[in-house]
């Protein structure tokens, strides 16, 4: 039984603490959230965490000085814009602490990240946003050296410029071949937007050329819209070879720019291989990726189903129907930041509702879109029935033009939100 004096003492201390809670807390160590990866997901999450709770210490670990965005990078391939319009620095991240190192290991038990210079950072919670890495094990003949001849350009930057320069150099009458992987992969409509904008370039600059898409699938995102547009804008220029017609690439030979399929082989003048992918390397190292190579998450908090205290957002995460898009990454980042802020305050995280909107350009003045609304159901992010879908098939020219304008303005808006 405590003495009366002791009880009063505790009560007095509590009242004092209640009256001046923040200065006391600030005098002590703030909880640190470490975010790994400075793309759409990671940079968004770091900024949102500071906006949600200024008492958090937020550290973003990203080795590169600038991020080169993939959305809209197909316009660079077609010579419609420069790579600088795709490039964003981190000066706008405000009071997020930026560490320009590579995270090389995670000790989930101790809550610690090791960087490539040997230093360690402790975290209260860790958010992994490593994006994708190309799964070179999954396609015989394709590796980093082969990618210098048959560019993937699926991470924007030097690969984008390499492919652009190859396209600029081919003769009229040449053959461009690109291959698309099986699901899931970053940006489901991306290969078809790429085909469209390359076709636009060929039609206007090298009209006797041809483009073949070798596809490991029998169906793809916005398919009816793309196919109708190709018929209208690029008749006879694009040939899509689905899985069932022998589209799956089983091997490549970079020396001869040859794609091998079960039905034969195709030699290209310009070859872009979009290979199978998996979550970025640190996700594999941290033990949050499963045997598929992707990271299963809780649909409310984005906490890993494999390692408590680690959250995974953006392209690296899998958790149901949400596609791997920049919009999804940004929306997930904000929901995850809210959940992390709540968990650190010992509050119940709110059930999120997420949106995805994704525009594709078929030509500079011809845009199409898909949208979806998602919510947690049975441990996954499930589509809200009755919502979402693609642009109408019979839309007027003005609507296509409007969607092209929206596509560009969406990119301006989201990059301003993510990178400041």
């Amino acid at each position, binding site marked *: 039984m405590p003495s009366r004096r002791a009880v009063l003492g505790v009560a007095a201390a509590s009242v004092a603490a209640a009256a001046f809670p923040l200065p006391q807390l600030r005098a*002590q160590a703030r909880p640190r959230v470490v975010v790994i990866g400075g793309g759409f997901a990671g940079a968004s999450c770091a900024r949102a965490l500071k906006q949600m709770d200024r008492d958090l210490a937020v550290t973003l670990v990203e080795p590169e000085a600038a991020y080169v965005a993939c959305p809209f990078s197909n316009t660079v391939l077609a010579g419609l814009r420069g790579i600088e319009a795709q490039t964003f620095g981190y000066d706008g991240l405000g009071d997020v602490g930026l560490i320009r190192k590579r995270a090389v290991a995670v000790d989930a038990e101790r809550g610690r990240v090791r960087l490539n210079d040997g230093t360690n950072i402790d975290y209260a919670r860790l958010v992994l946003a490593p994006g994708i890495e190309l799964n070179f094990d999954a396609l015989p003949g394709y590796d980093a050296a082969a990618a210098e001849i048959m560019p993937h350009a699926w991470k924007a930057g030097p690969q984008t410029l390499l492919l652009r320069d190859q396209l600029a150099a081919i003769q009229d009458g040449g053959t461009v071949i690109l291959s698309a992987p099986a699901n899931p992969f970053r940006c489901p409509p991306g290969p078809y937007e790429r085909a469209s904008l390359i076709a636009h370039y060929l039609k206007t600059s090298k009209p006797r050329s041809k483009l073949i898409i070798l596809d490991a699938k029998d169906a793809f995102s916005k398919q009816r819209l793309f196919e109708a547009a190709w018929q209208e804008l690029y008749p006879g220029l694009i040939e899509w070879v689905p899985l069932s017609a022998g589209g799956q690439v089983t091997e490549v030979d970079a020396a001869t720019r040859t794609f091998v399929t079960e039905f034969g082989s195709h030699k290209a003048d310009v070859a872009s291989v979009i290979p199978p992918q998996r979550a970025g390397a640190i996700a594999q190292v941290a033990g949050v990726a499963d045997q598929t190579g992707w990271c299963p998450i809780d649909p409310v908090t984005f906490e890993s189903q494999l390692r408590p205290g680690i959250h995974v957002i953006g392209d690296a995460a899998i958790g149901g129907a949400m596609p791997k898009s920049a919009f999804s990454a*940004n929306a997930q980042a904000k929901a995850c930041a809210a959940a992390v802020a709540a968990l650190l305050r010992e509050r119940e995280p709110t059930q999120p509702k*997420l949106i995805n909107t994704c525009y594709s350009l078929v030509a500079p003045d011809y845009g199409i879109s898909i949208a979806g609304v998602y919510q947690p159901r049975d441990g996954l992010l499930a589509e809200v029935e009755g919502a979402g879908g693609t*642009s109408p098939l019979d839309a007027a020219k003005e609507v296509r033009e409007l969607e092209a304008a929206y596509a560009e*303005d969406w990119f301006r808006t989201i990059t301003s939100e993510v990178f400041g």
Partner: protein
Amino acid sequence: MSWCDLTKGRRGRFSAPVLLAAVAASAPAFAGAPPGATACTGCHGPAALDTAIPSLDAHAAADIVDQMQAFRTGQRDATVMGRIAKGFSDEETRAIAEWLAQPEAARHAEP
């Protein structure tokens, strides 16, 4: 008790519940955003950006609710908003509209 105790995610270890309650009372508005609300700014930026996608700055909550209903019923033409509005109930729409109608600064944590 230190902040580190708060951060380990171990429930029920706190010796000063009054202090914790005080922290919770100072919770910022952004963290309390209703479901779906924070996704809107992926397309709708501040007015200063001046894009073809309208800014939601300085719209009254009632107007946002009206527009969302018009999108949902098809009364107002849209590219993507009709498809998105169908994913939210009246109650969710109202909560999002009230949150969006706050000044931008109020949606963020106090400095």
